[in-house]
C-alpha cells in the first residue's frame, strides 16, 4: 500500500511564529515534519496516520548552532551535517560529532535533524547516548513561552516524551565542561553505513588519582528509550578501577538494561555486547589497561 499524497495536508508557514500559532490553534492536530527522514518512510509505505503536517524545513530560527561561554546551543532543526561540520562540536563534543556520522548516509545527514532524532524517540536514536553523557538540556517552545528540562528526563516511555501537543523542541543545550575527561562511544550494528544499532554505549569520566570523581554512562537499543545507566554509574563513583569494581559495574549494568529480541538482534546478544562495550571503556583508563 503506497502513500497517497492527497490523503495528507502539508503546510509550510515559513516562520517559527507561524508554526507555533498553528499548533496553538489546534493542539495535537498537526504533526511537525522537518527533514522527513523518518515520517516519509512511513508515508511511502502507506503507514503515516498523521493527516495534517506542518513543515519545519527552511525556518532559519530553527537551524543554527551557537557557542556561548558555558555551552553550545544547537537549534532543533540543525541537521547532522551541520553538527559534523561545526568546529566547536568536533573539538569539544567528539562523541556527538561521531554519532552524527552514524546517522544513515550523507544523503540522510543533509536532511535529518537533531530535533527529529530526539522527538521521534527511537530506542536506537544515534544522537541520544552522547547527549545523555554530556548532561544536555532540552528547550521546548510554544506560543505561551519556553521551558527547559534535562534531556535525561525528556523520554518518558516508548516513543513518548515531555512535549505538550502545542510544543516544539526548540534547542539542545550542551554544557562545555569536558576538558580533561575521558570519553567513549561505540555503536554496534550490522554494517558501518545505514545500519540501525543493535546496541550503543557512551561514557564520560573524570578521574582524580585514579579514582572516579564523575561518571556518565548511557546506552541505546537496550530499553524502551535511550537512557542513562545510573546503577552502573553508582558502582563506579568514588572507586578506583579494579577487577572488583569492574565486575560490580558489569553486574549493575546487567541489572538495569532491559533489551528485547527484535529483527536486528537478540536480548542476550545485546546484554553481553553492551557489557563488553562498558568493559572496553573502563579498560581504556584502567592502570594496567587490561582489566578482565
Amino acid at each position, binding site marked *: 500500500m503506497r*502513500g497517497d*499524497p*492527497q*490523503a*495528507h*495536508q*502539508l*503546510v*509550510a508557514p515559513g516562520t517559527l511564529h507561524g508554526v507555533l500559532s498553528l499548533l496553538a490553534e489546534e493542539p495535537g492536530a498537526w504533526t511537525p*515534519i522537518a*527533514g*522527513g*527522514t523518518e515520517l*516519509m*518512510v512511513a*508515508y*511511502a*509505505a502507506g503507514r503515516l496516520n498523521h*493527516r495534517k*503536517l506542518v*513543515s519545519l*524545513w*527552511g525556518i532559519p530560527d530553527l537551524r543554527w548552532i551557537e557557542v556561548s561561554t558555558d555551552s553550545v546551543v544547537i537549534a532543533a532543526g540543525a541537521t547532522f*551535517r551541520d553538527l559534523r561540520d561545526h568546529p566547536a562540536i568536533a573539538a569539544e563534543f567528539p562523541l556527538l560529532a561521531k554519532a552524527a556520522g552514524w546517522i*544513515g*548516509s*550523507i*544523503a*540522510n545527514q*543533509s*536532511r535529518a535533524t537533531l530535533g527529529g532524532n530526539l522527538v521521534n524517540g527511537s530506542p536506537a536514536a544515534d544522537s541520544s547516548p552522547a547527549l545523555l553523557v554530556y548532561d544536555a538540556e532540552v528547550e521546548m517552545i510554544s506560543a505561551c513561552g519556553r521551558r527547559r528540562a534535562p534531556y535525561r528526563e525528556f523520554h518518558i516511555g516508548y516513543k513518548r516524551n515531555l512535549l505538550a501537543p502545542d510544543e516544539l523542541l526548540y534547542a539542545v543545550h550542551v554544557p562545555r565542561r569536558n576538558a580533561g575527561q575521558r570519553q567513549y562511544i561505540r555503536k554496534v550494528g550490522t554494517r*558501518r*553505513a*545505514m545500519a540501525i544499532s543493535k546496541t550503543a554505549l557512551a561514557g564520560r569520566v573524570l578521574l582524580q588519582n585514579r579514582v572516579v570523581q564523575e561518571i556518565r554512562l548511557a546506552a541505546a537499543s537496550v530499553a524502551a528509550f535511550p537512557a542513562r545507566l545510573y546503577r552502573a554509574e553508582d558502582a563506579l563513583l568514588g572507586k578506583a578501577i579494579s577487577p572488583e569494581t569492574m565486575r560490580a559495574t558489569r553486574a549493575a549494568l546487567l541489572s538495569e538494561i532491559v533489551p528485547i529480541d527484535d529483527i536486528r538482534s537478540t536480548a542476550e546478544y545485546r546484554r553481553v555486547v553492551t557489557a563488553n562495550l562498558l568493559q572496553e571503556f573502563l579498560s581504556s583508563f584502567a592502570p594496567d589497561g587490561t582489566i578482565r
Partner: protein
Amino acid sequence: MTLSYSSIEFVVNRERCQVSVPPMKRLLDVLREDLGLTGTKEGCGEGECGSCSVRVDGELVNSCMIPVLQAQGAHIETVEGLSKSGELHPLQKAFLACGGAQCGICTPGMLMAATHLLAQNPTPSITEIREGLAGNLCRCTGFVRIFDSVIASIAQSHAGPGRKSHAG
C-alpha cells in the same frame, strides 16, 4: 477531506519549473511523473538505497524522502543535468569505460553521490570515496568497478584539459 494542489516553483538542471501538485507528493515522483525526468530511480523508497539521490541546493538528498513543498524555491540537480551540450560528464564517461554500470538502477544515484563528493572534495582518497558512496547500494557490480570509475574520472580530470590550461 478537502485537499488542494499547491503551485510550486523551483529550478531543475538550470531551468525554472512550475508544477501544480499535492504538497505531500514526493520530489522523486514529481521529477519522474510531472517533469518526465525518469533518470532518477526509485529503489527502496525509504532512504536506504540512494537510487533516488539528487542534489538540492548543493546538498545530496534522497528525493524519495522530500515532500515537494519542501523543495519550493530550491535548485535541484538530477542525473539529466550532468551532460552538457550533448557531451557526457567525465564521471559518466568513466562509468562507461570502467564497467561502473550494469543493470543501471543504482547508476543515476551513484553518479549524483559521486558528483556531490567531487564537488566537496576534488581529490578524495579511496576511503573518502567509499564513505561518499556508502548510502548508495548496488546489487550488480560489487562496488569495486564503481570506485574504479570515480578514481578514473579524477585521474582523467587531472590529466585532461584542466592541467593543460593550468600549465599553458
